[in-house]
């Protein structure tokens, strides 16, 4: 019996294997960035920094800029977050704290099922069911009551930035909700009971105990959802309108980086066109990287203030 010896060697091998896996991820990451960079070099050389600020997208004249697609990506994601975050936190609170016992399990499962629906199904459903609803009811109502704002003007087509933001919100909502619910469920019972014992209302317990306690977890859930919204492709392609125009109106069609890639990759026949599309991909990569980086920093700072 050479157990001690075996154990030691086992540990070393195990450590080596896991290290290799971890390094493999890093190598993959570097390879992706390197490849994107290499493939987009022609476009980087031709357009330089102005690629990011130019609103041109003209395959005939080989003149490309990412500005409109970047704005579209950020605006649709921002819209989605504005809609999805409050609703999903509400859903999570209800399921974790307020719902009667018999409701919790089926509702929780239903939400997790929503998260598993493929995005193209959301896209189709949006196009065939929600887009007409938006154009016939929601958008005319918005235009009538809030038409003085530049965001709600123009023809109500049911296809455009607002619908894209809505579909994104709907897609990330189950993600955020189910993770947030788990976070709330982890709040120690004795903390809550102590608060109730001091005469707190449910609202006060939620506001002063549960949300501060779960802050980090909630933020994690939100950024998980945001990551998905930034890169979402098919659902957006169906409803955003795929037009390279900038407009203040959320009714107007726009485009996002991911939808532009989905649309144009197969038929990009000139080298500079293809290279510009790859550079768009690189830009999306960087945006995601920066957003998640900021999130990490913010979480670290927030962590010192309390919570877990």
């Amino acid at each position: 019996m050479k157990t001690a010896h075996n154990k030691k060697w086992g540990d070393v091998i195990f450590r080596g294997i896991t290290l290799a896996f971890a390094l493999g991820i890093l190598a993959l990451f570097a390879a992706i960035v390197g490849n994107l960079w290499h493939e987009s070099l022609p476009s980087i050389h031709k357009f330089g920094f102005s690629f990011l600020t130019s609103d041109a997208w003209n395959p005939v004249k080989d003149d490309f800029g990412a500005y409109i697609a970047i704005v579209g990506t950020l605006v649709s994601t921002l819209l989605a977050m504005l809609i999805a975050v409050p609703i999903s936190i509400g859903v999570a609170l209800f399921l974790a704290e307020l719902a009667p016992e018999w409701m919790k399990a089926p509702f929780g499962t239903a939400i997790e099922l929503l998260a598993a629906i493929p995005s193209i199904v959301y896209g189709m459903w949006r196009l065939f069911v929600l887009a007409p609803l938006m154009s016939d009811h929601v958008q005319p109502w918005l235009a009538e009551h809030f038409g003085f704002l530049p965001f709600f003007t123009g023809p109500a087509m049911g296809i455009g930035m607002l619908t894209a933001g809505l579909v994104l919100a709907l897609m990330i909502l189950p993600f955020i909700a189910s993770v947030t619910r788990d976070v709330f469920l982890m709040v120690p019972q004795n903390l809550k009971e102590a608060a109730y014992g001091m005469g707190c209302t449910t609202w006060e317990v939620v506001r002063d105990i549960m949300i501060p306690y779960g802050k980090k977890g909630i933020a994690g859930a939100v950024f998980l959802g945001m990551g998905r919204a930034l890169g979402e492709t098919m659902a957006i392609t169906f409803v955003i309108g795929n037009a390279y125009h900038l407009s203040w109106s959320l009714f107007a069609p726009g485009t996002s980086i991911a939808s532009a890639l989905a649309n144009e990759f197969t038929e990009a026949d000139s080298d500079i066109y293809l290279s510009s599309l790859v550079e768009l991909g690189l830009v999306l990569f960087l945006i995601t990287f920066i957003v998640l980086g900021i999130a990490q920093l913010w979480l670290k700072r927030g962590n010192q203030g309390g919570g877990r």
Partner: protein
Amino acid sequence: MKKMIFAAAMIAASAMSTAPLAQAAATITGAGATFPYPVYSQWAHDYNKETGVKLNYQSIGSGGGIKQIKAKTVDFGASDAPLKAAELDKFGLMQFPMIMGGVVPVVHIKGIKAGQLKLSASNLADIYLGKITKWNDARITANNKGLRLPAQDITVVHRSDGSGTTWIFTNYLTKISADWAKTLGNAKAVAWPVGLGGKGNEGVAAFVRKVNGSIGYVEYAYALQNHMASILLQNLNGTYVAPTSANFQAAAAGADWSHAKGYYMVLTNQPGATSWPITGASFILLYKTQAKPAQAKEVLKFYNWSYKNGAKAAEKLDYVPMPAAVADMVRATWKSVLKDKNGHAIWK
């Protein structure tokens, strides 16, 4: 014992995996245009029944088809946009036309049925340029006396992906509108000044069906299958014509293929009283010098069979088959142009 079973299984497996290899010559591969895909797959189905030869055609789009044939991953490429003779020479390719069809503007206006709305050539261009923005614009109503057109915004729908259909459509607009030619031009994707982009023919069809007050352009078959309201379009002779197989044929009839260098021929805006103005052909691309002559011969045999026996299937799917005279011309070109490595003709 276990080892024996394993060995037996290995032999069986390798026998199975070599079986398809032996038949590999009986499968021809191609990639490209989506527009002729339905008819190519119908032909392939019929041809397979007769000869046992299989066609594996990937409808990835015209640009993709050109890319794949240049990369030599397929036996033939297919494109709705013909390559110019100079470009063919540069890559050592040859092309020939295989099938023709029409691109059809369709509208969705309350109360307007197929064949009711008349648009002049300049109307269509101005709508797509964003110069005409309302359906009751005087320039449109002037051609449509007696038709009640609403004071509604026009929602323009175009393709969001690069497409041979767009190539044919913008080729037409470039011919009829100096403004279009100057600012936008003719390509598989252009910098659309207005409108929504739908992915694929089905995407454009879906947007037009959903959005009231919209206009889009799709392949004829999509307009028919989706029961969409096509327009009457003014042709080069000044008459308003409907998109029908007969009118596509009329546009194709006048084409002088014998003088088209490298079969570079665009069928838009053709003369003739009943010619549908947005007609186009779809092309097959092959390497002039074939590394695998046997494989190339299978491709030629398939398309030769299709020229001969495919007309009926094509018409049933609302395409226009190539006239017999053009097919003969193409066969002659095969004979003179396609060679194996030693310079022997492949098609005899």
